[in-house]
């Protein structure tokens, strides 16, 4: 059992750095609008979403209506809707409260790790995934509480440390590129998002980009279906 946690810790170190950095920033912001570390702790425990909780700070500050809070959270976290699609098979062996927790804790970073890690030999995937998910959230909670208690005392200039999150996604993208024979999904994802950002600007591009990616991938199903089960040539020959 200790092995599982050690192995999970190894793969989650980048998230540790990133979550501490953006968690501390969240705690500081929350403290600045008059909510102490107890609020930071409960928000990180129950909401557990990076950009969602940043939004939460402004909602609390402005005294937003509940309906507004619900709608804005839904829009901001809409991308999470597709994450579960890739986890339906992976989570099949997980049951009960652990499955509930795995679904609850499916942040961008945990999703990215779970789609890219290989379970070490001799461990059950369910245990390994659970350890990754739980460690990630503990980093986030520690970061946000730390930020609200001691953020103002931090004298070390941490500007730019949140780049660890970007670097984590870059590293995962490179790993996937090397591993997959077909690069069309990655290219599509990059092009759709870039186009959407160029056309719509940084505030509204995510949902249109996500929609375009899903629609294009559905349209290309004939070309991309099941590369693992059938060699490339066979699939091509079978096309009418």
């Amino acid at each position, binding site marked *: 059992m200790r092995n599982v946690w050690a192995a999970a810790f190894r793969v989650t*170190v*980048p998230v540790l750095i990133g979550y501490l950095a953006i968690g501390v920033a969240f705690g500081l912001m929350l403290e600045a*609008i008059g*909510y102490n570390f107890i*609020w930071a702790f*409960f*928000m990180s425990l*129950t*909401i*557990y979403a990076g950009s969602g909780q940043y*939004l*939460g700070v402004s909602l*609390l*500050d402005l*005294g937003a209506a509940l309906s507004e*809070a*619900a709608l804005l959270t*839904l829009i901001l*976290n*809409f*991308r*999470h*809707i*597709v*994450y*579960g699609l*890739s*986890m*339906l*098979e992976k*989570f099949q062996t997980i049951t009960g409260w652990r499955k509930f927790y795995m*679904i609850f804790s499916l942040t961008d970073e945990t*999703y*990215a790790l779970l789609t*890219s890690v290989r379970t070490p030999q001799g461990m059950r995937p369910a245990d390994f995934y659970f350890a990754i998910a739980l460690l990630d959230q503990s980093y986030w909670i520690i970061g946000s509480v730390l930020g609200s208690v001691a953020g103002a005392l931090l004298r070390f200039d941490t500007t*730019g440390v949140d*780049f*660890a999150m*970007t*670097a984590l*996604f*870059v*590293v*995962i*993208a*490179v*790993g*996937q590129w090397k591993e997959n024979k077909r690069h069309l*999904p990655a290219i599509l*994802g990059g092009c759709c*998002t*870039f186009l959407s*950002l160029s056309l719509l600007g*940084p505030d509204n591009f*995510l949902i249109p980009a996500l929609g375009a*990616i*899903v629609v294009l*991938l*559905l349209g290309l*199903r004939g070309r991309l279906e099941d590369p693992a089960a059938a060699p490339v040539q066979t699939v091509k020959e079978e096309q009418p």
Partner: protein
Amino acid sequence: MTTLTPAQAAACIAVMAVMTFLTRAIPFLLFGRKGGQVPPVVLYLGRVLPPAIIMMLIIYCLRSVSFAGPSHGIPELLCVAVAAVLHWWKGNNLLSIFTATVLYMILVQAVFV
């Protein structure tokens, strides 16, 4: 200062928690039932989406980079390239992420100020 009572603030947090969980749970509510068959098209999407989503998340992280700004996005693009090349070459997660992040911190704190 806040205009909400503690009870109102707690309600706001609860609503955000429920909505966030809902966005993550919808695929499982729709397709995750025990013994139920997941439609092949959904499994297909689940398999091909991750590389596309990871690219989306990279751009999402870089969304506020301004090429017209004082640093022209050089620190971001350079450090993304460093992470990618280093990882292609060595294949060591921590090495790639640490190097790119430290370089980025130096660039934004000391070079492009």
